């Protein structure tokens, strides 16, 4: 697009430190005053295989990956398996270069490690360079690294070369290296950084115009992922118990929680499977701790039955579901939004749960906090659904987002003093009262094991007011209606929260874009571009999935002529949810679907829109699909 943004892509092999190199470089850009957003692409492999991280940096707010990118740093892949082009995975050695050329913008920069990569192995390399006006700098990064330290330090050489080519100040990069390393390793890396920087400045004549943008932060920023938002939200709500089983990408939240819970006097349990994980969260919450668990699609499937148990026993828990491309094992490291219906309805019987879908790290923090608050106030499971993109993608967020007071409140519980006067029947506390004093919101306060005067039976079977198993029809209806009434009360409470759905763009716009979860940023960027091009478009990213933000979405849809529902799955699950919840608007809704394992780029949304407006015949090479809600 413009020169006021840098989109730096560092490509190499899994296990070569691409991720940590990119994290530090992104932080350095942040410290230089820029906003950053990262997108990570990696295979489900430990060692070897093409991987890249993209860092988009600008003085402006950045909320999405860009369209393509403008600076490639191609490093080698130390663990590349197949040197032959005929091999199943192709020639892995050359992939850091060959796999990344399609998305490099015209006029972009290529820096490659000539110690490991040979452009002769890339088909039509020279022709493509000329055609696209790319500026190519070949550097023996490996040689430089070996000269002063170890071969893996070529990443540092690449960063030094990048800084030289972009006129970036080395100070923030050095500071970050000093934070992360020490002794000989630090010395070697610093030498390599400077040698690469000086070498490039001295030996190369720069033919490119691109320079690093400059900027200033209005507010002190921090560099966090959606997983940090979720974990920090949980910690600030007093969550001190987590149980889990490793699974990509949910492991990010699980790890962050575990690494902090010891210090915070909490308990983290790694258990035998996800059935156990969710059951442990229930057990801990039942005994009086604020507890959570979570997983990704397959693991969450195992949580179905405990989830229903939490609904039936009215045990507060928060579960998080980090979606990845399905079905079954699917594509473990790739994002998708295909688990929406799974999360909404899994487990037997009528579902009775809260589901939030935050759109960025700040929303992850706020909505995880709200999920805990509602779960404990209403004694109901609350689920935060997000995806691999939000899980691992980092971006700059004002630190003030996290400057909030903790809320360890256990919600609707009784104390032993309350129990002295509490209603009892047959020697048991009336835990599930039809007409609880707390009013019509359906919540009957709970006692905790160990409290005097509070014993009752929690059961997944239908039960009467003291928890005893009951199949009496009158009791059944009263208990069902009481439990189901909670969602109406929660919907009322949420509707008071005026800006829970993120609305973006001119209020009186003719057209709408609807999305949920991590698609927020890309939809908003598309809105900006479409309006700049003279269209009249606004966006709404829906967070309140269940109870559904009916009034907000209705008002939004009534105000536009047509809306494009943008989501990362093949069957338009979110669009169907909208139609199911609102019972109308089918003739106004169109879907833009993507399910190839990569998140949307803004240009794809723009293109989808232009097709709908009849300005373009089709979406061209983009791997997306448009369909109408009515099927024509």
């Amino acid at each position, binding site marked *: 697009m413009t020169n006021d943004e840098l989109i730096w892509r560092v490509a190499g092999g899994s296990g070569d430190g691409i991720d940590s190199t990119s994290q530090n470089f992104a932080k350095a850009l942040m410290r230089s005053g820029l906003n950053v957003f990262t997108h990570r692409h990696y295979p489900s492999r430990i060692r070897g295989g093409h991987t890249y991280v993209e860092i988009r940096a600008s003085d402006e707010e950045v909320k999405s990956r860009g369209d393509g990118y403008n600076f490639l740093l191609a490093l080698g892949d130390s663990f590349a398996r197949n040197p032959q082009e005929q091999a199943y995975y192709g020639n892995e050695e050359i992939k850091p270069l060959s796999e990344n050329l399609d998305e490099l913008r015209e006029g972009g920069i290529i820096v490659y490690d000539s110690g490991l990569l040979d452009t002769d192995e890339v088909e039509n390399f020279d022709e493509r360079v000329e055609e696209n006006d790319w500026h190519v700098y070949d550097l023996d990064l490996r040689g430089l690294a070996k000269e002063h330290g170890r071969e893996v330090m070529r990443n540092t050489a690449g960063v030094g070369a990048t800084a030289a080519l972009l006129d970036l100040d080395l100070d923030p990069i050095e500071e970050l290296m000093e934070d992360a390393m020490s002794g000989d390793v630090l010395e070697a890396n610093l030498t390599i950084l400077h040698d690469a920087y000086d070498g490039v400045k001295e030996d190369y004549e720069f033919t490119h115009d691109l320079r690093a943008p400059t900027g200033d932060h209005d507010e002190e920023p921090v560099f966090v992922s959606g997983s940090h938002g979720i974990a920090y939200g949980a910690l600030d709500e007093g969550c001190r118990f987590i*149980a889990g089983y490793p699974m990509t990408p949910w492991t990010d939240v699980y790890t962050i929680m575990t690494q902090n819970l010891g210090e915070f006097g909490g308990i983290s349990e790694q258990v035998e499977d996800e059935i*156990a994980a969710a059951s*442990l969260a229930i057990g801990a919450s039942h*005994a009086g701790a604020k*507890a959570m668990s979570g997983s990704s699609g397959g693991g969450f499937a195992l949580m179905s039955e405990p989830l229903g148990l939490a609904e039936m026993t009215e045990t507060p828990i928060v579960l998080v579901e980090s979606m990845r491309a399905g079905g079954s094992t699917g594509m473990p490291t790739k994002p998708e939004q295909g688990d929406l219906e799974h999360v909404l309805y899994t487990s037997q019987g009528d579902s009775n749960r809260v589901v939030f879908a935050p759109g960025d790290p700040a929303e992850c923090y706020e909505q995880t906090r709200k999920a805990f608050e509602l779960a404990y106030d209403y004694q109901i499971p609350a689920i935060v659904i997000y995806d691999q993109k939000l899980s691992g993608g980092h971006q700059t967020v004002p630190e003030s987002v996290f400057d909030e007071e903790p809320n360890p409140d256990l919600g609707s519980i009784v104390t032993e003093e309350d129990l002295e006067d509490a209603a009892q029947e047959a020697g048991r506390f009336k835990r599930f009262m039809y007409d609880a004093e707390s009013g019509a919101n359906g919540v009957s306060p709970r006692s905790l094991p*160990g409290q005097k005067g509070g014993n009752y039976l929690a*059961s997944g079977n239908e039960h009467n007011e003291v928890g005893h198993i009951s199949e009496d029809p009158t009791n059944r209806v009263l208990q069902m209606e009481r439990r189901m009434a909670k969602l109406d009360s929660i919907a009322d409470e949420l509707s008071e929260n005026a800006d829970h759905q993120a609305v973006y763009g001119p209020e009186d716009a003719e057209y709408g874009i609807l999305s949920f979860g991590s698609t927020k940023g890309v939809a908003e960027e598309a809105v900006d571009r479409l309006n700049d091009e003279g269209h009249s478009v606004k966006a709404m990213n829906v967070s309140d999935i269940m109870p559904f933000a009916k009034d907000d979405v209705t008002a939004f849809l009534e105000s536009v002529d047509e809306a494009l529902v943008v989501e990362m799955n093949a069957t338009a699950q979110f669009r169907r949810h909208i139609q199911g919840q609102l019972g109308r608007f089918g003739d106004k809704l169109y879907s833009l679907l993507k399910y190839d394992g990569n998140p949307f780029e803004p240009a794809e949304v723009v293109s989808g829109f232009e097709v709908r407006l009849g300005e373009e015949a089709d979406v061209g090479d983009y791997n997306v699909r448009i369909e109408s809600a009515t099927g024509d």
Partner: protein
Amino acid sequence: MSAFNAIGEDREIDRDEFTPEIEPQATWCPGCGDFGVLKALKQAMPEVGRTPEETLLVTGIGCSGKLSSYFRSYGFHSIHGRSLPVARAAKLANPGLEVIAAGGDGDGYGIGGNHFMHTARENHDMTYIVFDNEIFGLTKGQTSPTSPKGHKSKTQPHGSAKSPIRPLSLGLTSGASYIARTAAVNPNQAKEIIAEAMEHDGFAHIDFLTQCPTWNKDAKQYVPYIDIQDSDDYDFDIHDRREAAEMMYEAEDALYEGEVLTGRFYVDDDRPSYQQEKQATGDMPEEPLAERYFDDDYEWERSYDLLDRHR
């Protein structure tokens, strides 16, 4: 000041306190072994000095799962096979509770077998009672993990081709630190074993033989039984893992030959409980987590203080 004053209460305890006013008479079939578990449990409670309100009984699904309906305490009737993960987390959140889990042989050794193995391995300080009747009762008599080889039922019309699971050996290899087998027909021994299991600091596994007079008529009233501690025919050291393993193997085989060997099979008093291990590594607070939410003076940590690593 505790928010849980039932815990550690020092008073006279009557076993009748454990009888609920609703359904004081359990609805199991006449002659069912499950009555024996209920009775033995009620008798054991006063012996170990624990009251109904400091006790959490977590049960699975099946006839055995109804135990929490007929026993007055804090109860949690969970889902099939999952009593152990619910129970052990409650114990971690509030270690002052007396936590007992119970379920059938299908519940514990079949659908919940993974949890059994791992809860034993971790040695949580709790008691697990498995009602072993060698059959699925509530679903009307299907073959279960402890049914003998050749067992015929509607789901195994030609006789089961599977050898039964070895519950005691499984407990031992998994890491349980107290393992016993008792029988409903032996109420005194059952009461003593349950009391010992509750007093044991670690995972105590009781394989409790509960005859099913309705669906397992060929069996088995589990008489005559032999208490291996009382018999001169069996001389082994219950603290010796190898000797215990041999004794278990023999007892498991003998059951299907009609010889009912009961008693204590293995006791390890030295192994620290999971809670102790976890506190030693700094991964579990010394004060019960559940108390903290009632402590008005506690200064809750904030994520804001973690932000330096993100700058």
